[in-house]
Every structure is written in structure tokens, then in C-alpha cells.
């Protein structure tokens, strides 16, 4: 049986710049300029449901951000994951022209990661307060205790009781 992502790879040609395979899941890495075209092709192939749109911060690695799209086909059941690599100062094209449901998802990514989407009709913060500074899900955004009103206490990361270990299966 041909897998749906293989059909999509054929259809997209050189727009797909890489494939990540892990645990029977395939992630198609698409060139930034071609992502809207790829999303539209996937949608017209039957992946009509934009299940998720999110981002990953790879700081300090380069390129820094990944924007991840998860598309689902209702009939026959299948899903496919597309990914775009973005440098810290790059923007991604907005998918709101294809799915109105991308509106809030892109606002959330902008709010928490600071990634801008070109052509988004209303790119504002959505979860954090409007006057918030910084983008909390960035790796260089510190997670610390609230400052206290007495001396002799240094704020620390509250939940890092167990130190982070080095990657094992490099």
C-alpha cells in the first residue's frame, strides 16, 4: 500500500527538502517559500482538517525554529506532518487563507514563540496579556520564581530539582 506521505512527496517534488522518520511517523520538511503550496496540495489530496499548528524552539541550534503542521484526512483516516525551518528573524506565510481555523493557532505561536506570520489578518497575543513582554515558550525565556520581598533568597527555577542529563542516544 502506498503511504499518503509518499504520494504527497511525489506531488510536491523538490519542495520537500527532507524527511524525518521516527517510530513509523514521517515528517516532511518543506522549503519555506513552498509551504503554502504544499499545504494546499495536501488539503486538496484529502487532508482537509488542520489538526494542529505549532512550533518548536531549537535554541541554540540553527535554524532556530520549526513550525509544525499536522493535517488529518477524515476518509480514509490518515495524517501527515509538515515542517518548516525558520531562522530567528524569519517569518512564515500564514495559512489562514487555506483554513480560517489557522487564525488562533498562528496567534498562539506568535504569542508564545514570537514567530510572525505574513498575511495573518489579526496577529495579536491570545493567551498572554496584551502588554506582556517576551515570548514564554522560547528557550531563552527564563522560568523563575516570582521575586520575594525579603533578603537572603535567590530566585531559582522551581522545578529543576532533578538536573537535566546529557542526551543518551545521540
Amino acid at each position: 500500500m502506498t503511504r499518503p506521505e509518499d504520494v504527497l512527496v511525489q506531488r510536491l517534488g523538490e519542495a520537500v527538502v527532507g524527511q524525518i522518520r521516527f517510530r513509523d511517523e514521517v515528517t516532511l520538511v518543506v522549503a519555506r517559500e513552498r509551504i503554502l503550496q504544499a499545504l494546499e496540495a495536501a488539503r486538496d489530496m484529502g487532508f482537509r482538517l488542520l489538526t494542529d499548528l505549532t512550533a518548536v524552539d531549537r535554541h541554540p541550534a540553527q535554524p532556530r525554529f520549526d513550525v509544525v503542521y499536522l493535517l488529518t484526512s477524515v476518509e480514509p483516516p490518515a495524517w501527515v506532518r509538515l515542517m518548516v525551518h525558520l531562522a530567528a528573524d524569519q517569518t512564515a506565510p500564514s495559512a489562514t487563507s487555506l483554513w480560517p481555523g489557522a487564525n488562533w493557532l498562528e496567534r498562539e505561536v506568535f504569542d508564545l514563540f514570537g514567530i510572525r506570520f505574513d498575511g495573518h489578518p489579526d496577529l495579536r497575543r491570545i493567551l498572554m496579556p496584551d502588554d506582556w513582554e517576551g515570548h514564554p515558550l522560547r528557550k531563552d525565556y527564563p522560568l523563575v520564581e516570582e521575586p520575594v520581598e525579603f533578603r537572603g533568597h535567590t530566585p531559582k527555577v522551581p522545578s529543576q530539582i532533578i538536573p537535566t542529563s546529557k542526551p543518551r542516544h545521540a
Partner: protein
Amino acid sequence: MSQLTKETLVLNMGPQHPATHGVLRLILELEGEVILGVEPVIGYLHTGFEKEMETRTYHQNIVFPPRIEYLATFIEEQAYVLAVEKLLGITAPKRAEVIRLILAELSRIASHLVYLGTAAIDLNVTSLLMYCFRDREEILDIFEMVSGQRMMHGYFRIGGLQWDLPEGFAERVQRFLEDVPRRLDEYEALLTDNLIWRKRTEGVAVLSAEDAIRYGCTGPVLRGSGVSYDVRKAFPYGGYADYSFDVPLGTNGDAFDRYRVRMEEMRQSRRIILQALQGLPGGPVLVDDRKVALPPRRELVRSMEAVIHQFKLVSEGIHPPAGEVYAAVESPRGEKGYYIVSDGSNRPVRVRVRSASFNNLQALPVMLHRGTVGDVVVAIASIDIVLGDVDR
């Protein structure tokens, strides 16, 4: 005079409003009684779970999922542990899998009961809220019997369960389920045959199948519009492929259809649990992998190796391979997925919680377009949002 009638009124609803089922704020633009525009304002319950989960080990993170969607606690735990198990490439023992499934389906009934009670009280059917919460309390008692907690259980473990079921569990669940059809029939008699309920829900908050898909809706909101998509059927996980059940569908995509879908889902959940109880296998409830699961207590006094494993797991945690996985389950509100990115260390690089309520709530303005003010509470109740799940 003609100038006056063209004016619209902007009305603020919430965030502290009893009918918003949490802290949700709506900005309504009205022309008389008719709604011209709705803008949901969310984020009042944003607690940064995703950021917190990046700073803790995989085991420590089990406490977060039930706090995100606090009405369907076991389903949320199931989604998280399934994602981590996929990352590790392990599966829980069969017995653990079936127990998880039974508890998840009980969670679904409990969650739909809260929907039913709160949707009814929004339209002033006060008694039904009491009945629904009485029944839900029986389910929570069962949960307490199993895990020691009514809501924030932390009972599921990566690779299985914390401990086996207590004695008398099956009988108690069976006793509860025996009475479920009669009670559901009673509640339906109260609502389905009630002229007021039908007039307030039929043809109200209509969402077409096309719009439901364009907005990424899932769960009863999507199925109420007639699209047959249930993660349990489409991508069977956790043993759902072994049981027979139907996916109820609506036709009109209105609040009444969503209500009918949820009522039928409770009956189907009962059907699944009864089958699962019948075929509940014996055996262990936790994998025998010392790099993932804690060694049994009795080994600790006999084996130095077991002590070392215990120490490494408690002081460092699990080390999954580098990679990324997505695991989804069907929560009472729709597709709930965990997208976990690992770099091979003992804590995740990124945990993304795909929440069904977030996408479903986004379709609210479509449902309410050119509706009346009185329908707002009906529409919110029919989406059955959990604001903790929307804001995370």
C-alpha cells in the same frame, strides 16, 4: 431616527459569568437582539503547562495532564502516557491497557454528565444538574477506590499503571452501569420530549460540516455536523480495535444534535466498558523494563541492581531516544493529542498539547452569526469547552 437604528451595541460578557463554564470573555456586537459579531477573549486560565513540562522529567510530568482537562482526567493521562510510550517504543501490558480503557470510558461518561447538567441549567432545568452530578459522583467514587484520588489521579504510569485494581472493582462498575440506561432514559425524557428544550436547541448554533472542518473542530461538535471522525475508530489506540461500538452522528449540526450525539456516546461507552470487563486479562500491570518502570518494592531489599535502577530512575528519570512523536486520543471534547519532541535527555524539549476545546471554541462566532443574544449560552454549552484545556 434612521440614524439610531443603524447603531450597534457592543456588549461585554464575562470573564466572570456563570454561563461561560469557566473564565471566558465574549465581546458581542449586537443590533437589537441579533448578533452581528462575536469575539472570544481567552487566556484567563493560561498557566503555562507546556513550559512547565519542559522543565520536568517525563515521570514528573504525569501530574499535569489531568489538571489541563480536569473533567476527563483519565483520558488526559492516557494521552500523555501513550505519547511517551510511543517515544520509548514500548507498549503497556495487556491488562494495564484494558484497565486504562475502562477508566477512560468512565471518564467520558463523567464528562458528558457534566455537559448535560450544565447545558440544562443554562436553560433553567435545575433538577437535571443535581441528577447528573449525583451520577458523576458515583464514578468519582470508583476513581477514588482505584487511584486514591477523585480527580487528579496520577494513576497511569509510563509503561503501565501505579498498581493493580482493588478488590470488588468490577462488581462496583457493573452495578453502576446496570442503572445507567434507565437513568439516561429518564434524563432524555426530561429534555428530548420537552418543548422548551427543543425550541431552544433545535436550529440553534448551527455549524455546517464544511465550516466544522475548516475550523479544525473535532469530537461531538464535528460529529454533530455529520462528519464521522472519531480517533478511536480512525486511529485505534490503547486496545479500542478489540471492541465493537458505534459512532453516533448528527445531521443538522445544531445544539440539539450535539446533545443527541453525547447522550448516545454515553451508551456506547457503557457498551465498551461491559465488553472490556468481560475480557479483562490477568498478568502484570507494569512493563518489566528497568530503564522505564520502577522495580517492585520486594526486590529492593534483595537485589543491589534493583536499588541502582530505582536510584537512577528517581534521581535522573527516563532517557527516551531523540525524536518526535504525536499520539492522539478521543477526549469527550474531540481529538486530544500530545506532540513530544525529545533530544535524548531526561526531559522533553517540547510538549505540545493539542486541545480540542481551543479549536472548537474558535468556531463559536460562526455558530452565533445572526443568532440572538439568548442563544449565546446555548452555543457555549453545546461546544462543552473546558477553559483549562483552551488556555492550558
